[in-house]
């Protein structure tokens, strides 16, 4: 009577559909529940996952990024469990986790009325009559984006669900580096760590199944030997394969095969060879996609950068968020530009859209890592800062907490670029108002940005001291504290605010705090083997701080210690390139230090050591552009050292090597402005070398290349002030070169461009004295040009007076800054010369005297003073100066007397005569002087 066929067999595959034209690969998408027929090679993990799912209400699935955690949960686990048994609700917790769960549950019930989240969850469990599985995918976002209070509240709420709803379970997908952070949830989610599964990269044998299986299902042929060959490349000789690369390679091969034979696609070795190196395939794929957008490529880059977190993982956002974030990386984008670009990126499978919420995100973290490499240091800081602000906005909305003064203090240099709007801008403005009110009460008139920075410094220091007191703290906390100090150190050492008048002692004080921290770290952890790398890094930073503090002796010792430490680390851990990288950086910085100290031979050896290391790193890790960039910078530094030492030929070779590397970097990474900036600097240095060597034509070519690059950078990144500053410097250099070549009209135009930019910079950034100093130099140069051969002394005087005024103010503000004092003296000396030309010897005496007061070491000003006395008929005083100094040498190598005699020739040519000139000439004898004006 019985039919032996079981009910499972009886109803198997009823209603199943087939799709013979499916792609066998998923590119960067995770496998979903409908992809089970293509999901091969993970049977063991699926079996383990399934068993663990029923073992406890909480299941933790962890592993490195790119190991396929999401695919295993969404495809492997879900397809094993019948839909009528469990309802999987996947939730991302990057944004408000409560809202995320609410939205997901409301979607399940279909426009459910507004109700309490607990009630909503209960309603889902009751109405759906199956296990409710909350999948917290990419759960590292919870720790990245949620403040502690939100995390705690959410953990407690979920605990309530687990305890009260028998049919509620959790499956958590987490990157393994966040496993320690998850321990804060253990008190709330019992057994969190007891029921866990570690997902590892695909083993080669499984990877083979993951290729062959789906190809068979989809009718795609594979050339014999292709799979082992590619797997050998992908595993790099190891036993594991990274899934994202694997998917991109095979998807690329499949799409190529589809174009050639749509009905019978066949993946071949030849096609694979055409794709190129595996290591760079994802980067190249991304680059090619973006490049193919032509004029829209820069917009696409801006948008892609807006989808990456400070940690180099992906982050999602709606169209508005993306447009605002993209502003950090370039010009403001219109809605149409954002829409168009997003659609192209979606079409190219780089970005995916959540159709319900209209959120967008990168398809995989592997892409985020590549895009992160496009960002300059400044852009990375901006991303970090915006992320902090967005987190703080959530906290403000929930608890009404405004931003602290230390955070506000970090904003000014970035504010233009951050382009804060809407709620974020309101939060910052509210916080600033509150801070101002607070400061008015506490400090009244002393409420300046300086105080904010001081508060930030003190706050950070107190935090660090607190951390120090808690000696028995977890390693993770210790590392976080260390990172905080690293960040603090970077802020302090690079802060333009701390260059303000009077900030030097504070800057020094803050740097010393950081120095103390690193020294304490070295003492406390000297015996800790696991901390050796951190210790060596701390020594490296100690050296940098010592250098910044002007303590070159100890800085050198610290660099040598860092070199010794990293040499040992690099030998013991040859597999870790970061040790070699640090070693190279230590050698490079030591080279700079030694070069500045005048020990050119030792500096050269240090640079050569750095170069040898960086050459190997760049060769062994072509996928890391930072190594090539550092190699180029070290070559450039060596070039400067050789150039200063007079070895023009070798200097030129070094510059050329730097240029070759940097050209390639710019070509391969056109979206990284830092590389363009470095390239421009190298061209500029080469230009100086060529100009000094007398090759004006070649120097002009080099200057022009630097100028072109800097013009583009300044145009594409108007928000980066530094690019405008560098552009002005390039115009100034070009002006000097053209003036020397006699093309005064073109030189004047170049100077004028420099001045236009520098006037804007000095006006908009009065807090940066360097911009004013360069403006003064340009006025000075323009004055010299105007007052040159047969020129206009009055016009020249007008320009040089401006220069002198600026330098005088700077000298008063920064009396300890020798460069400003020297600049002021130079301007006064030049002013004296123009006044001599204008037949105003008394004014010349006054100007030269002021110049010599400012900097008595500038001998050439004394000449102008003597000339002033001569033409003012104080011959005895003039003669005394002439005779007293006649044999002294000026920096350009000529004697005092030679310069005086040359000046007399010029006077005569301009119709300036004095009856004692001939007598003085006799006394001084040899007349040789052409040009005594100093270049900036």
């Amino acid at each position, binding site marked *: *009577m*019985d*039919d*032996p*066929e*079981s*009910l499972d*067999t*009886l*109803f*198997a595959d*009823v*209603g199943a559909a087939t799709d013979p034209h499916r792609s066998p690969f998923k590119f960067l998408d995770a496998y979903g529940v409908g992809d089970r027929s293509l999901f091969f090679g993970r049977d063991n993990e699926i*079996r383990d996952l*399934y*068993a663990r*799912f*029923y*073992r406890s*209400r909480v299941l933790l699935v962890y592993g490195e990024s790119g190991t396929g955690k999401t695919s295993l949960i969404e495809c492997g686990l879900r397809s094993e*469990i*019948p*839909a*009528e*048994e469990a309802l999987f609700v996947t939730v991302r917790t990057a944004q408000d986790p409560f809202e995320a769960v609410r939205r997901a549950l409301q979607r399940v019930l279909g426009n459910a009325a507004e109700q309490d989240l607990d009630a909503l969850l209960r309603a889902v469990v009751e109405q*759906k*009559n*199956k*296990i409710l599985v909350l999948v917290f995918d990419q759960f590292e976002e919870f720790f990245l984006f949620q403040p502690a209070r939100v995390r705690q509240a959410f953990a407690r709420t979920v605990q309530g669900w687990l305890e009260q709803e*028998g*049919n509620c379970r959790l499956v958590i997908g987490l990157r393994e580096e966040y496993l320690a952070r998850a321990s804060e949830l253990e008190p709330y989610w019992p057994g969190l760590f007891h029921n866990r599964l570690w997902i590892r990269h695909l083993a080669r044998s499984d990877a083979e199944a993951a290729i062959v299986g789906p190809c068979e299902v989809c009718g795609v042929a594979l050339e014999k030997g292709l799979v082992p060959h590619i797997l050998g490349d992908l595993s790099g000789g190891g036993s594991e394969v990274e899934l994202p690369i694997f998917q991109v390679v095979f998807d690329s091969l499949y799409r190529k095969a589809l174009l050639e034979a749509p009905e019978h696609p066949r993946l071949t070795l030849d096609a694979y060879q055409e794709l190129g190196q595996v290591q760079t395939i994802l980067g190249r794929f991304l680059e090619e996609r973006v490049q193919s957008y032509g004029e829209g490529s820069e917009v696409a880059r801006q948008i892609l950068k807006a989808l990456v977190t400070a940690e180099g993982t992906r982050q999602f956002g709606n169209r508005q968020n993306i447009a605002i974030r993209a502003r950090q990386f370039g010009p403001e984008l219109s809605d149409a530009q954002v829409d168009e670009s997003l659609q192209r990126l979606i079409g190219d499978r780089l970005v995916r859209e959540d159709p319900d919420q209209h959120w967008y995100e990168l398809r995989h973290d592997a892409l985020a890592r590549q895009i992160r490499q496009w960002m300059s240091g400044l852009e990375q800081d901006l991303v970090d800062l915006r992320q902090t602000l967005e987190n703080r906005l959530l906290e403000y909305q929930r608890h009404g907490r405004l931003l602290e003064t230390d955070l506000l203090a970090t904003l000014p240099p970035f504010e233009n670029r951050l382009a804060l709007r809407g709620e974020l801008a309101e939060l910052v403005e509210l916080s600033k108002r509150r801070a101002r009110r607070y400061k008015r009460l506490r400090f009244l008139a002393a409420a300046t940005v300086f105080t904010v920075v001081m508060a930030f410094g003190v706050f950070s220091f107190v935090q660090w001291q607190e951390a120090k007191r808690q000696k028995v703290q977890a390693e993770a906390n210790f590392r976080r504290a260390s990172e905080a100090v690293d960040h603090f150190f970077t802020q302090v050492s690079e802060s333009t605010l701390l260059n303000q008048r009077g900030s030097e002692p504070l800057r020094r004080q803050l740097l010393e705090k950081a120095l103390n921290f690193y020294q304490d770290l070295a003492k406390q952890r000297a015996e800790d083997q696991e901390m050796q790398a951190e210790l060596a890094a701390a020594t490296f930073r100690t050296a940098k701080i010592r250098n910044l503090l002007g303590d070159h002796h100890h800085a050198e010792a610290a660099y040598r210690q860092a070199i010794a430490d990293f040499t040992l680390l690099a030998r013991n851990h040859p597999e870790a390139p970061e040790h070699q990288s640090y070693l190279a950086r230590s050698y490079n910085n030591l080279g700079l230090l030694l070069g500045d100290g005048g020990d050119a031979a030792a500096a050269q050896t240090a640079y050569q050591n750095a170069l040898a290391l960086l050459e190997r790193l760049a060769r062994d890790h072509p996928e890391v552009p930072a190594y090539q960039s550092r190699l180029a910078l070290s070559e450039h530094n060596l070039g400067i050292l050789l150039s200063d030492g007079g070895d023009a030929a070798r200097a030129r070779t070094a510059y050329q090597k730097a240029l070759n590397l940097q050209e390639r970097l710019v070509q391969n990474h056109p979206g990284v402005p830092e590389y363009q900036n470095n390239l421009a600097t190298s061209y500029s240095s080469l230009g100086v070398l060529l100009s000094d060597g007398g090759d004006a034509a070649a120097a002009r070519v080099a200057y022009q290349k630097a100028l072109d690059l800097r013009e583009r950078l300044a145009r594409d990144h108007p928000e980066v002030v530094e690019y405008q500053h560098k552009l002005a410097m390039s115009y100034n250099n070009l002006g000097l070169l053209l003036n020397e070549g006699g093309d005064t009209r073109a030189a004047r135009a170049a100077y004028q461009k420099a001045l236009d930019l520098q006037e804007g910079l000095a006006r908009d950034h009065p807090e940066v004295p360097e911009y004013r100093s360069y403006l003064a130099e340009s006025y000075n140069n323009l004055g010299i040009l105007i007052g040159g051969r047969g020129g206009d002394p009055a016009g020249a005087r007008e320009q040089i007076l401006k220069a002198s005024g600026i330098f005088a103010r700077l000298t008063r503000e920064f009396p300890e800054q020798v460069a400003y004092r020297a600049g002021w003296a130079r301007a006064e000396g030049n002013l004296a010369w123009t006044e001599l030309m204008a037949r105003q010897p008394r004014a010349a005496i006054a100007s030269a005297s002021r110049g010599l007061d400012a900097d008595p070491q500038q001998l050439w000003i004394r000449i102008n003073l003597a000339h002033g006395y001569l033409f003012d008929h104080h011959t005895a005083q003039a003669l005394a100066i002439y005779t007293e100094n006649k044999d002294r040498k000026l920096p350009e190598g000529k004697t005092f007397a030679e310069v005086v005699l040359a000046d007399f020739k010029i006077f005569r040519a301009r119709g300036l005569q004095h009856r004692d000139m001939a007598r003085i000439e006799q006394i001084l004898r040899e007349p040789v002087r052409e040009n005594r004006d100093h270049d900036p």
Partner: protein
Amino acid sequence: MKDRYAREVINGFPYPVAAMFVRLRTDECLDPGPNRLRYLLSTGEAITRFLGVVNLCQARDFAETAQRVPPHALRADFKPRFERIAWGTWLHLARESLRWLLTEAQAMVLIPEMGRFFFDPPPADSRAVKALGELLTLRNGLSHDKIRVMHAHEFQELCGRAQELLESVLEALEFLLDYELTFISEIDVEKRRRHEPVFRHRLMRLIGNSGDFEGDRHNQANPLDSHAVILSHRESGRHLNLDPLLVYEAKAGKAPDIFFYNGMKSPHQADYTACKHGGNFRGSESERAANLAEELTILLQMFGDTATIPPALV
């Protein structure tokens, strides 16, 4: 069936029945179609298996304690039927075991309501058992190929009929709410000087549709059988050991679950199938392989054509 009663079935019936029945109330099974038909029939089959297990175990216990040989109606073809057990066999075993017990004056059945469920008016089959039989007939009329080409109206008709039959069975089984299915996972002994030993039982409740099997503790003077699934009356505490026909297994299957005996080649190679998510396993793969084989051997000896009476205690 009233919604309130359906909820009682889901929350209070033994897990093997509740776990299958609850699926009928999910979105995937609401509309008449292959999925709904499948779970209507699966629930019917689960009920039959469960009743078969209970009645056969009652008969086994009676045979052992009363030293009686089962009647020919139960023993005829028992071995081949038992080795290739299916829905129809379970129904047969459930009915014939109970029929025997009801005719034996000494027999004490754990579930007295079972008599009326099967025979009403005795000795005729009750309406509920006839409904189970009809569900079985309905299922035997189906084949994989047939289902694949069935039209919507045919599913509608079949689902309607199957539901009607199932509801009548479930309504007649209301008495199951008075019984509790548990698994005794551990027994600790506590013995103090001058006191009788106390046996602390760690129990897993196998009631309702949740596969979590929440834990419970229970102290009593006499130990129950460890690692056994038992059915007990909530008030009186009277109980029946359902091993080896219904077992809890944490390791041998795909996941921890309750498993029905599902045929065998020999007592050492018995097959078990999960009530819900545990997949299948072979008895020899279990940590209790020897126990299971021993108990199955006893059943074969007891109900085989050449039945022998095993000693009550071994």
